[in-house]
């Protein structure tokens, strides 16, 4: 479509270009922490969603039992994944869909690109999908001379800004409405003159812009929130109606679905459709839930394709502790309550899945990379508390830390500490030495500046000085 008239290029600087994606988390986080507008936007948005979630989750008496049930269903899926995937394929095929299997991102992208060409199209409209973000489908399409247009409002904002999503559910969470107005004004091409930052005006501008795309698109690409093995159905959960347009209007529909999205039976949806909206957007009921099973003649897309995506998932499945990460339903509740995510945003994580779930998923999906992410947590446990499928994120974080690798210096320091702590007499001697060594500071009460690595502490905090008399001295004295 030629509505992409040259837009005036202003001084829009995408956040993702400022926060180095390949830098270790602490470095990237430091950059994000130094961006006051980004931090204000994040704190406001996460605070709002957090409160909404807490309110609506608290309304259900059986919330904890729903969580237990969802966790049990997902654990069952993980035990029977090969069987369920084949069952899904058989039922979807019988209903008229074509099922493809993709080992990795390259295979999935190649299949999708081929299908778009076979449909006689050179562009697609897209439903918001984390799987396609994960395999970088848009970038691959661009390299192949195909265009992928995001139709979810927030994804559209991010795409127009030439930025990267910073949140699983709310990819433009790092922008406020004034920034969004500027992005539309300069990049949309057909934004109405005199566009204000009134949310309704912004939504209307996006709506008009997208309407033209929906009407002309020959093919659409989606993900799926759930894939039901028993019926061969796919389910997309969205709240803008853009997904429904993509799923029903074009002749060809290509859905890229991670194999962990399988559910055994249709009835299982009853559990997840209660948990997901309340956990993600803080809504009691989801506005647009689309369910489709293969092809229905004369109604909706007549060429329905499903690409089942592995891309590291079977590797995760092999780890008995780590595999619970595959239970994730991408609600983002863990991001919204995470004190680390709230302050850094998603870009600092350097992966499409940020926040607590990203910290356990990214290093497992791409072994050997993102080794710094399991440490991007204070292990406060707020994520586990809200997770609708009860992924014990702190447990997996510690598990992944225990896989290593560890820096030699740290390894030596930890070994020395263990050697002392495992020998009570040596431990007592060490404590006595510390009390003696601390004498010069005792009058001040605090140590204010320490050499590295202690400087990492004293950069913002004082360290108390060991006392003159230990508890042990006191105990010995009163024992007499």
């Amino acid at each position, binding site marked *: 479509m030629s509505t992409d008239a040259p837009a005036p290029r202003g001084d829009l600087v995408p956040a993702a270009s400022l926060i180095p994606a390949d830098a270790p988390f602490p470095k990237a986080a430091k950059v994000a922490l130094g961006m006051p507008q980004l931090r204000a936007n994040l704190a406001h948005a996460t605070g709002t969603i957090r409160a909404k979630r807490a309110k609506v989750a608290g309304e259900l008496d059986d919330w904890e039992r729903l969580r237990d049930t969802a966790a049990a269903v997902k654990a069952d899926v993980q035990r029977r994944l090969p069987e369920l995937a084949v069952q899904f394929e058989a039922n979807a095929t019988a209903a008229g869909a074509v099922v493809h299997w993709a080992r990795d991102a390259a295979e999935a992208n190649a299949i999708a690109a081929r299908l778009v060409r076979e449909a006689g199209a050179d562009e697609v409209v897209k439903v918001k999908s984390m799987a396609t973000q994960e395999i970088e489908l848009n970038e691959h399409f661009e390299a192949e001379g195909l265009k992928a247009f995001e139709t979810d409002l927030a994804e559209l904002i991010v795409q127009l800004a030439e930025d990267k999503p910073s949140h699983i559910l709310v990819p433009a969470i790092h922008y406020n409405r004034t920034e969004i107005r500027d992005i539309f004004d300069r990049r949309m091409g057909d934004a109405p003159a005199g566009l204000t930052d009134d949310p309704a005006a912004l939504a209307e501008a996006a709506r008009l812009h997208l309407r033209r795309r929906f009407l002309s698109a020959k093919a659409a690409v989606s993900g799926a929130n759930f894939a039901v093995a028993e019926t061969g159905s796919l389910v997309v959960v969205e709240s803008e109606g853009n997904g429904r347009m993509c799923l029903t209007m074009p002749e060809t529909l290509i859905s890229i679905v991670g194999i962990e999205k399988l559910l055994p039976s249709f009835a299982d949806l009853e559990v997840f459709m209660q948990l997901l909206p309340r956990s993600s957007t803080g809504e009691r009921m989801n506005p647009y839930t689309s369910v489709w099973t293969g092809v229905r003649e004369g109604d909706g897309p007549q060429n329905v394709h499903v690409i089942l995506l592995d891309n590291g998932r079977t590797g995760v499945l092999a780890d008995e502790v780590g595999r619970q990460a595959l239970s994730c339903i991408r609600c983002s509740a863990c991001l919204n309550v995470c*004190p680390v995510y709230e302050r850094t945003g998603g870009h600092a994580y350097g992966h499409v899945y940020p926040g607590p779930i990203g910290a356990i998923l990214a290093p497992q999906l791409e072994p050997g990379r993102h080794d710094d992410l399991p440490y991007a947590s204070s292990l406060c446990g707020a994520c586990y508390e809200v997770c609708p499928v009860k992924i014990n994120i702190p447990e997996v974080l510690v598990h992944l830390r225990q896989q290593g690798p*560890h820096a030699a210096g740290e390894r030596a320091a930890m070994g020395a500490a*263990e050697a002392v702590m495992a020998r*009570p007499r040596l*431990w007592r001697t060490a404590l006595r030495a510390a009390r003696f060594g601390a004498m010069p500071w005792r009058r001040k009460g605090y140590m204010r500046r320490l050499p590295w690595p202690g400087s990492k*502490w004293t950069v913002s905090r004082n360290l108390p000085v060991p006392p003159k008399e230990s*508890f042990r001295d006191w105990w010995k004295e009163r024992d007499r």
Partner: protein
Amino acid sequence: MKRVALFITCVNDALFPETPKAVVRILERLGYDVDFPTAQTCCGQMHANSGYRRDAATLARAFDDVFGGYDAIVTPSGSCAAMARDQYPHLTGSAIGQRVHELSEFLIDVAGVEDVGAVFPHTVTYHPTCHGTRALGLGDKPLRLLRAVGGIDLIDLPAADQCCGFGGTFALKNSEVSSAMLADKCANAAGTGAEYLAAADNSCLTHIGGGTSRSGGPRPIHYAEILASTA
């Protein structure tokens, strides 16, 4: 007389003798015979949470050796109690954590008391530490004990359930993020105008106090020391 073992934790062993002394005073006031096994060192949490599983397992086994003979082990740390209860079964298969009680759990669930006869005529705000609250499920037990203290004026801490940013080696490895979390905690604590900020873990209090001693705000105090105060 009822006998209990006291696990003071390595942090208190090194830095804060007043907290375990307070625990001894409270328990003895309630008629318990407190035993302090001197061979105790550390529960191994720092090693486990930093990814040094083997070292942590060695320390967990040592904990078992030292405390194995006691029916009840009391500790003034939600975090260390959670370590024994949640992680030992995976590390060494030990179930000793079932006998390790954080002080407020012991007082309310085992001893069956909420009013320990303390008097503390000061303004206090309470920070529910993460491991105590979430891993151990302490709920409002420490607060219930504090509410029964004579003369105390408890002030709510805004955003109390947010982590202070300590997280063990997290404070060093992700120093900047940790410091940003601490700054918010300190500002919220200072905003209460309280004289003291109480909590169930001296490691978190070291962190918060390390911040408030620079930026101003309430003095950190382990809630056991409040419970041990008398008129």
